[in-house]
């Protein structure tokens, strides 16, 4: 059974310096509040895995939490660059950043393989592409039946998965509805997992027998953090703040504006500020 606790306690107990951490959410349900808590607790030397290291990893990288990023697309979706990520890769600020780069297909398959307890993922990929030349973790195998050459990457097996979801019940079962990304896979692939949720309820009330549910015994810790995905969104709770994603482009472009924003909005705050983002939309939904 997962421990239902505070976000601060969950991060403190389960994420350690040097851990391999995968914070997932494919545009939807990105665990921003958890990212801020990791920054406040000053975790260092993390290997960060994520298909799309967008604002959340830009912030963590800029604040010096990461030594390595494993990823497939590092940008601000629909807007442009991740300036903190680029500053680390191009100019080693605030510290050098090692990268391991894959395609989306490889990353998705690597999570799937991790959830499936396999050491590798096999897929048809990287044909004619240059990434295999620069990433030694991309290999090729031959199909023993057809002779076809297929790509292989190691399964992702993070120390900790961090995701945000709509609901947990009091037993600790977690429900995800809408764009589910690789969230189920990353939790099942990881040794430990922290799930922040919009609310803890008596009954998950999934709308279908086949709803995306993580049983309680697959989750390590749960914290209720309303609005915890902001500026990403939680289907049924609040919308994506597309305007903030555009605003991030200005905030993150220079080191000093970035640091000032982080101090005011992260270091000097707590997870409770996320609730503010849910309010207008919650009212609208009621």
């Amino acid at each position, binding site marked *: 059974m997962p421990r239902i606790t505070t976000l601060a306690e969950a991060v403190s107990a389960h994420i350690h310096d040097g851990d391999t951490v995968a914070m997932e959410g494919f545009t939807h349900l990105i665990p921003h509040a958890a990212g801020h808590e990791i920054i406040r607790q000053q975790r260092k030397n993390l290997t960060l895995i994520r298909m799309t290291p967008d604002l959340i990893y830009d912030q963590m990288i800029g604040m010096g939490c990461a030594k390595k990023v494993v990823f497939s697309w590092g940008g601000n979706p629909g807007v442009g660059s991740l300036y903190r990520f680029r500053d680390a890769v191009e100019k080693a600020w605030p510290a050098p950043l090692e990268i391991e780069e894959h395609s989306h297909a490889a990353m998705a398959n690597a999570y*799937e393989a991790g959830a499936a307890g396999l050491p590798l993922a096999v897929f048809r990929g990287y044909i004619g592409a240059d990434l295999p030349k620069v990433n030694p973790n991309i290999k090729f195998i031959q199909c023993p039946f057809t002779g076809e050459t297929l790509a292989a990457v190691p399964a992702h097996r993070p120390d900790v998965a961090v995701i945000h979801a709509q609901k947990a019940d009091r037993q600790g079962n977690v429900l995800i509805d809408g764009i589910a990304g690789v969230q189920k896979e990353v939790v099942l692939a990881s040794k430990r997992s922290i799930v922040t949720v919009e609310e803890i309820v008596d009954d998950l009330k999934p709308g279908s027998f086949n709803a995306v549910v993580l049983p309680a015994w697959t989750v390590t810790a749960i914290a209720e953090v309303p609005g915890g995905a902001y500026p990403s969104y939680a289907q049924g709770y609040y919308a994506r703040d597309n305007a903030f994603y555009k605003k991030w482009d200005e905030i993150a472009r220079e080191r000093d504006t970035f640091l000032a924003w982080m101090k005011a909005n992260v270091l000097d705050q707590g997870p409770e500020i996320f609730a503010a983002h849910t309010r207008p939309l919650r009212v609208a939904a009621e």
Partner: protein
Amino acid sequence: MADAYTSNEMMTIAAARAMRNEDVCFVGIGMPSAASNLARLTHAPDITLIYESGTIATKPDVLPLSIGDSELCETALTTVSVPEMFRYWLQGGRITVGFLGGAQIDKFANLNTTVIGPYDKPKVRLPGGGGAPEIATSCGEIFIIMAQGKRSFVDKLDFITSLGHGEGGDHRARLGLKTKGPTKLVTDLCIFQPDPVTREMIVTSIHPGVTREKIQENTGWPVRFADKVAETPTPTAKELETLRALHARTAAAHGKAA
């Protein structure tokens, strides 16, 4: 005749026209999304749009800013996990058209969205390939939309993020691929299509008012023109109206959430 229009609008509209009602499209954010939805709202009402976030057969009323806006999920027939999207739908060979763009393209329509400069010491670190490496090889064919310029239409890519026609000729076939690769490259100036034999992208249609010289000035390799080059029909009033209304709805929706 239609109103005045921008070269960007011409590019989006020319790309939209390439899409067929029966296509199943893997859509990326930005221009591909605008072009695909314009096609859906004009001549291809039954087109199936799939976004890599897992949303299948979406019919968004406004354009998503990200690949996984709630609008996509709410208007989709169903939403699957991302591993399923890449395994069953993309790799499964169920997509007829994939859209790609990039920071750099060469004459065989290979694309670079990874780095400018050496990989280990990049001058500019770009976002990376995302879904492109497998979109480029798994979709039935590829449409590319990119504004032309000497810095983006280059003689040699710094990095091959996704395969086009490789070194040309039967290179794709030699790599075991049965998909067609890039069949159309739509720019703000013209439309390129691959030469049937060499697979070099050659100009087959020029947008109204654009000269061959202007195309060459904005291309980093000696441009080849087809024996018969068409003039791209100007945008119709309906095309322009629909595209502008779509962008207006989108701007209103994205501003609203601020």
